[in-house]
């Protein structure tokens, strides 16, 4: 397993001076999993985007270390796999082309058989030459899992992981979850109890407290 650690300290995010969450802190090492829950608009997706370095925090810091070396936020993407409803695929390309193009843009060089293997893992091997535009939303979600898992990332971020998935897709998602647990860290943003119970720890984003109150990120071990 990769010696990976993520430390989130005193994180706050405001949009147009409106606080979304504040004082979020947690620390996870390889093999640990975390569920983030909270009502709509509490900032679950925003928190995941900040962890993935897609957004900057208004205050606080996210530190990702691999083998004791801190990774600059510019290079975080190399260690992150993400599945989220707001992450969209290139619909004019086929499933196989999406894997190939993104793999090349990542600077990786997987073989054709590895692409086939990834597509088989998410049960899309028979539709590999079909353009993504013709896929159902569940099939697109499966392809996002293949893209996220392709480089075996140290940190897997799942936002509403079972969105649009059928029972077979949910089983695939759970298999990946277990494999990732042996590979690194998983952080799941969800309000589904079935997803949250798979995680070792949980924080709840319950909104920004009034001035003087303690932080919103309540971490509870399981």
């Amino acid at each position, binding site marked *: 397993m990769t010696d990976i650690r993520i430390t989130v300290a005193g994180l706050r995010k405001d949009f147009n001076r409106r606080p979304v969450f504040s004082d979020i802190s947690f620390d996870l090492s390889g093999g640990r999993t975390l569920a983030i829950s909270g009502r709509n608009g509490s900032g679950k997706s925003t928190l995941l985007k900040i962890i993935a370095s897609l957004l900057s925090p208004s205050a606080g810091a996210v530190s990702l270390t691999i083998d004791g070396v801190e990774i600059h936020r*510019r290079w975080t993407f190399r260690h992150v796999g993400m599945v989220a409803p707001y992450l969209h695929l290139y619909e004019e390309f086929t499933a196989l082309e999406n894997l190939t193009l993104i793999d090349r843009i990542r600077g990786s060089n997987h073989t054709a058989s590895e692409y086939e293997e990834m597509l088989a893992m998410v049960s899309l091997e028979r539709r590999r030459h079909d353009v993504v535009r013709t896929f159902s939303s569940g099939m697109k979600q499966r392809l996002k899992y293949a893209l996220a898992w392709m480089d075996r990332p140290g940190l897997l971020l799942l936002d509403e992981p079972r969105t649009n998935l059928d029972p077979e897709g949910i089983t695939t998602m759970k298999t990946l979850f277990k494999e990732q647990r042996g590979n690194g860290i998983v952080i799941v943003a969800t309000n589904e109890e079935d997803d949250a119970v798979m995680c070792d720890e949980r924080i709840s984003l319950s909104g920004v407290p009034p001035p003087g109150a303690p932080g919103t990120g309540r971490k509870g071990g399981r």
Partner: protein
Amino acid sequence: MIMKSDGFIRITAAVFRKDTSSELRTRYALNALFLFTLTTLSIILFSFQSATVPVQVHAGLLWVLIFFAAMSGLSRTFITEEDRGTILLLKLSTISTPVFYGKLLFNVLLLLALTAILTILYSLVLPGFAVMSMTSFCISLFLGTVGLASASTIIGALIAKANARGTLYPVLSFPIVLPLLLTVIRATTIAMEDPAWDAAMDEYRVLVSYIVAINAASYLVFEYIWKD
């Protein structure tokens, strides 16, 4: 951690290949450019009919066509990524620099092809269009096109997240590309009047300086656009 130069070139080429394949399938920019070229050339042809037009007017008209064609097509590279939500997939796959240069390369080659086709059509349909120095004319077209594509690419990236893009793009572009347009129209006019290839050397220097300056500024600015 740094990216090695061969890795940078490979990723830039991968972004360019993705954009080219995507454009060939969706034809977002190609259709806009083709329709714009067809309609404007037809309007100019019917307006002028057999009237004799001064050289300066030909040079100005040619660059007006190229400028507005660039405005209608080149901003698409970043806007489509933003509109379709695929920009996040790119951000999770690589750093900003190869994305910018991959898209810049795509825009430069697209506009070079468009300029070549537009110039050939223009010279065929409009009477009185003659070039004294073909070398000077080609240098002017090349430098002007690269400068225009460079400016259009960074402005397209800047406005991709804005709401009123349709208005913002030409409004923001005009002051940025005005020095380029004035210089390249002068260089093109000289190429149509003077047979010496180096008669517009001062204009070439200004155009090269413009390309270097706009690309240096783009390199510095794009990292901030990319972040949030």
